[in-house]
Structure formats: C-alpha cells, structure tokens
C-alpha cells in the first residue's frame, strides 16, 4: 500500500511546490536580476526566415543570419497577440531611428494578417521582418516567450539579450549604452 499512499500525497506535494514558488516570488520583490544567457558572446545561430507577406504583397523582406556581419543589428522577436510587445513598441520605434543600427524583427507564431494589421495600426519600424509561424527559429535563440531582443555586433556575435519589453528605462540604461560601446 505505500505506493498508493504516495499517490494521495501527490496533490499536496504539487501544491507545496507552487506555494513555495509564489512565496519566493513575493519575497524576491521582483528585482530583474540578470541571468547570463548561454548565447552571450557566441555567434548568432544560423537561420533563414522568409519575409512577411500579406494579401500578395511583401511587407518586408526576410531575415538571413548571414546578413548580420558588417553592421550592428537589433533582432527583436514580436507578435501581434503579445501585450508586452505593444508596451515596448515606442522604444523599438526609437531604436529604428538610431544611426548605423539595423532593426530586424522576427514575427513569432503569428498569422500574417494579424501581424500586418498590427503593424499598420501601430507603425512598422522594422527594416526586415522574418516570419517564424511554427516557432522553429525561436528555440535556437533560447526564447522564453515574446518579446525578446538580441543585440548582435558587427562580426555576428550576440552581445546582449533582453527578455521582456524594452521599457524607456531599459532602452536608456542598457540598450543604448551597449550600442555605443559596440560602435567604438
């Protein structure tokens, strides 16, 4: 009978784990501590994403990882269904106006129509947009969800990773200084 007893204990055990996680979460005060990504300073994974097309029109050309060489690139994963993406959209738009930086987007698990309408509604800052409808590129980058943003240097190495929206503060204190450092 001990195994049967254990079965009845399972719900309690699962709950204990969730409760401990929640308590930890509240205690942590949610300081965004930076866990280094395994990808930092490694070459960006090789991929090729077709461009965003809707109604027979190509809205933006696709993205090739080979194109990262020779210029500083901001690679931003976004989706029309993602609320935090809307939060960071003004900052992404600001980034697109930064000189000598290429802003490219990967449209993650989205429908072309939704993505096209979303961009029409909120503005399209991206120089290129690759589509990843089935989420095949995302795992290569260790994506947790959207939005996530990668800063890639002139030789194609990932130098910085931002999980979650780029707020005005993140832009000013983290992204822009990193871009400035790369320009030197």
């Amino acid at each position, binding site marked *: *009978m001990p195994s*049967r*007893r254990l079965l*009845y*204990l399972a*719900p*309690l055990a699962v*709950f*204990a784990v*969730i*409760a401990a*996680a*929640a*308590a*930890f*979460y*509240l205690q*942590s005060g*949610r*300081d*965004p*501590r*930076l*866990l280094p990504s395994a990808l930092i300073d490694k070459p960006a994974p090789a991929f090729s994403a077709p461009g965003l097309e809707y109604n027979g029109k190509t809205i933006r050309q696709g993205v090739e990882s080979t194109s990262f060489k020779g210029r500083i690139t901001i690679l931003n994963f976004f*989706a029309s*269904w*993602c*609320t*935090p*993406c809307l939060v960071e959209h003004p900052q992404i738009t600001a980034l697109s106006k930064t000189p000598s930086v290429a802003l490219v987007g990967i449209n993650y*698990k*989205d429908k072309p*129509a939704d993505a096209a*309408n979303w961009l*029409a*509604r909120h503005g399209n800052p991206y120089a290129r947009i690759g589509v990843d409808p089935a*989420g095949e590129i995302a795992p290569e980058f260790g994506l*947790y*969800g*959207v*939005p*996530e943003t990668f800063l890639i240097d002139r030789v194609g190495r990932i130098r910085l990773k*931002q*999980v*979650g*929206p780029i707020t005005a503060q993140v832009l000013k204190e983290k992204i822009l200084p990193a871009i400035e450092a790369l320009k030197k």
Partner: protein
Amino acid sequence: MSAEIGHFALIVAAVLALGQSVFPMAGAARRHGALMSLGGTLATGQFVFVSIAFGALTWAFVTSDFSVANVVQNSHSAKPLLYRITGVWGNHEGSMVLWCLILALFGACVAWFGDNVAPGLRARVIAVQGMIGLAFLAFILLTSNPFDRVNPMPADGRGLNPILQDPGLAFHPPLLYLGYVGFSVTFAFAIAALLEGRVDAAWGRWVRPWALAAWSFLTLGIALGSWWAYYELGWGGFWFWDPVENASFMPWLVGTALLHSAIVAEKRDALKSWSILLAILTFSLSLLGTFLVRSGVLTSVHTFATDPERGLFILAILAVTIGGALALYAWRAPALKGGGLFRPISREGALIVNNLLMTVAALTVLFGTLYPLIVDALGLGKISVGPPYFNATFVPLMAPLILAMGIAPFLPWKRADLAGALDRLKLLVAVTVGAAAIVVFLEERHSFAAALGIGLAVWAIGASVLELAGRVRLFRAPFGESLRRAAAMPRSAWGMTLAHAAAGVVVTGITASSVWQTEIVRVMKPGDRAEVAGYTVAFAGVQEVRVGNYLARRGRFTVSESGVALATLSPEKRVYLPQRTPTTEAAIRTTWFSDLYIVLGDPHGEGGHAVRLYHNPLVPWIWIGAVLMFLGGMVSLTDRRHRVGAPRRSVRPVQARPAEA
C-alpha cells in the same frame, strides 16, 4: 454613522463565524444535537451581520459619503446611481465584502435547505463554511477595511474606473462570485466527508445540487465577462487567454469535471476519493482566481490595486486552506472504500474520460498562466506565451472531449457496447463527416480547424437531439406518447441535453467567429466607403459630444446592403472626466447570426480617422450557448431528487465512534 455600523457588523459577523467554526464541529464529534444545530443559527446570524455591513457600505456609496476613504477613491457625485451602487464592488475592499456576503449566504443556505443531509455531516459542512468566512472576514478587518474614514473630508470623489462603468461589467463580479463561492459548499462537503472518514452514494447526491448551482453561475459570469471584453475592449475578439480570464476558466473546467464525477459517485458509488479531490481543487482554483489577482503575483489589464502586505495575508490563507485540505486528503482519502466496478467501455468510463480531459485542460491553462510568472520570478523579464500556446494545447484536448460527450449518454452503466452505440449514431457520424467535408470543400483557408470545429459542433448538437428523440421514442411511438414521455423525463435529463447541445452551440460560435472573421483596418475620411462581408459602410464624420461624466468623439457610419440602408452605427472614443481616462466603445449591429463591429480609432491626417471594421459570423452564439448552458444547469437543479429524494445513508451501527482512518 453608517460606516461605524458597518464596521461593527463585520466584527460581530467575524465573532459569529468563529463560533460557527467551533461549536458544530465539536457537536458533530460528540454527537451533541444542540451544539450541532447551533451551527445553523450562527450561520444565519453571520449572514444577517454581513448583510448589514454590505448595506452600510452601499448606503455610503449611494449617498456619496466622502468621509469614507473607499467612497472617495472609487466614487464621484456626478456618477449615475446605478454605478454608484455597482461601485461598491468595483474596488478591492468592497468586492471582498461582497465575496463574504455570498459566502455567508451559501453557508446559511446549507442551514436552511440542507434538511435532507445527515445532521453530523451538515454540522461539519457548516463549520467548514464558518472557518472560510472567519479567514476572509479577518482579512477584511485587518488589511482591507472598507469603512476607514478620511479626515478632512474631500469635496468630491475620484470616480470609479470608467472601464467599470458599464452594465456588463457591473454585474460580472456578483455572478462570478456566486460561482466561485458556490464551490465553497462542495469544498466544505469534501472536508466534512474526509473528517467523517465516510463517503457514500448519498454524499454524491448531496454535493451535486451545490456543484450545479455554482457551475451555472460561474458559466454565466464567465460569459458575461467575455461579452464585456468583446464589446468594450474594442479588439474584435471575445477571449484573450488573459491571466484573469484563465483564473475564472480553471475552476470552471475542474468544476465541470466535479459535476460529472459526482454523478458516478451518486449512481455507482465509485470515483469517490477522486470526486473529493475535484471538490477541493475546484474551490482551490476559485480562491486562486479571486485572490491571485489581488496579491500582486498576477498582473493583468483588470487587476485591482495591489499591496504586498495583503499579498502575504492572502497567500497565507490560500496556503492554510488548500494545503490543509490536501494534507487532510492525503491522510484520510486512502482509507475511503471504492465502490461499484465497471468496464472501461461504459458510462463510467466515458465520464472518467471527461474528468481526465477537463483536469488536464485545467492543468495546461494553469501552466500557461503561471509560466510567464515563473520566468519573471527568475528575474528574466515579462514575457507572453499567448494564444499560440493555448490553441496548441487546449483545442486538441477539447476535440476528444466533445466526441466523448456526444456518445456518453448512449452508453449504459457498468458495461457498454461501443460498436452498438456507434451503430445507433451511424447517421449522425455520416452527417458530421459530411459537414466537415463540406467545410473543407468550401473553404481553403484554415480548412482543418474549421472542419474540426464545425464537425464537433454538429456532432454535439446532433447527439443531444438524437438522445432526446430516443428517450421519448420520437417517431417510433405515437406522438402523444412521445409528449407524455417528454413530460415524464427527469429534469436532470433535460438539463443534460440542453447543456450538451449548448456546448455545441458555443463551439459553432467560437469556430465560425475565429475562422471566418473579416477584419479591415483603414484610414477613412468623411464620405469614404468600405465593403465588409457584403455590407457597405459609409463614414459620415465625427462629432464631439458631452454626456454625463464623459466627453466623446462619436463617429457616424451608415450601413447598407445592396443599396438598402440598414442601420446607423456610432462607435465612440470616450474620455471620462474626473480621471481623464480614455475608453473605446465599439458599435455593433447584430443579426444573431453575425455581428458587424466598428471601432473608431485616432484621428489620422486631415479629417481622416483610423477605423477598424469587423464582420464576426455567429459570434453571438457563443453567449447564447453559454446562457443555454446556464439554463441547463438550472433545469437540472429543479430535479425532483434534489428536493425529496434524500436517500438513506448506508446502514451502520449508530454508536458514537470517532472516524479513524
């Protein structure tokens, strides 16, 4: 003065709740009749005093008593009376009082209408209700007192969040709470049964009406919330997999499983410890739904103001309630005796399939809701997994569920012949496959999803109709006899048929509106026309208006079909004055078969406005279906056996014997 009366009444209610948790429990342990019946009196008393507190708070809102801090923060003298009343629960403190009021009401209802429940079990149920009430009354009194005064008294209030100034949202919380809190009764029944160490068929019968009532209200509450999101948020959709929506959906899924496993417990004396676990989980998820939103753990569009102190208090209550219940379950449930045996292919088997799929569906929703939190807790950032995750995990679980739902009523208890049941349904199988094939043939986009959805809907509705026809021997017996049989059919059978067919109606609405929605986004100038799904929409212009407590830019659109004018629609962008908060009011023209939905956006260029036009086919069926489900629950609730059919408990020696595991 009314604030002090309210505060005092809450304190009295808390003291009564303390008595209610102690005396009937002690009475049940000692088989002391007077102590046990004291529980009922105390439950009634708790209800009366929480009502007084709620009445006092309502009075403060209605009379705009700005010496009360809560009224200042959430009301305004220029607000219409209706929203001054609904403002009572449009804030954290007031909604907690409403929550306790409904909890006390359910506790009192067990005392008033629980005559057919064995006295010992009833006393324990009332005691458990008292404990839950005590915990939440203490929470209100210690951290969220709605009657705090403010000095000096301000001249006017800050106004209710304008998004809440809407009839749909005004009545959404009370219905939702009737659902959430209704499951406290099934939870109390589960705890009481574990304490007694005995669960029999009678337990299943006593639990079912409470589960039915709670489930029905929760269904209606969720539907109202989704309808509100549809017409108020102006995104053209009806369900966004938002954490708060998920929070109300999870108890619904597990509650639906409980509703079905309680039938097996009642009719076949099986699945008993499983039903107990479901009863605990349903209320646990209800608590999670109500309180995770307020604890600061979850963030969402409709979150209340949060405060870490409250968060820890709430988590402590959740930990004790849920952890305690599950610990009791781990300790006592292994000793519960299993009942009737059955083969995998049987009605019991089909109901187990329902239970497993519903529970797994709830777990996937729970995982999808908590995963972004876990990522955030690790300090990684706020991300979203969104609809792609839920569509990929949830839909594949619902498909077999609906297949099983169609066939289960054709399977007898204990042992069934699946081939025989399918033989009775062969015509329906053909019609279902045919309907799916037609969809594939007509529609090249999304053909698989569309075919699956429409096929499942035809199957669900068709199976319900056939089951009903079979019961009344339609066309097999003279029509008069069919009518007599229909009249003699138990109400619970009618309820099931209605609710199952309603599920098909909901699936039709979800499929059609997701797959065949047309969305047009464009900048329109006065005089411009747009074509949407056969309608011609002409934009006449925008005017500024002032109504009550808001300013609005109101667009005028005339809708015509092949030259015949049908309607004028006026979507608005409003700015509510005290806080200058903007809201969007979509304009909708419904034919009950489809909606034309217009949203006015921001000005764009010279005289132009961004306009979004949607055509949403069959979208009203989602809410029609939900109302039918509610009615199904209500019809089933009026079944005779819930009123008089109190079965005798299994005969046992009546000596006082403490229940040992």
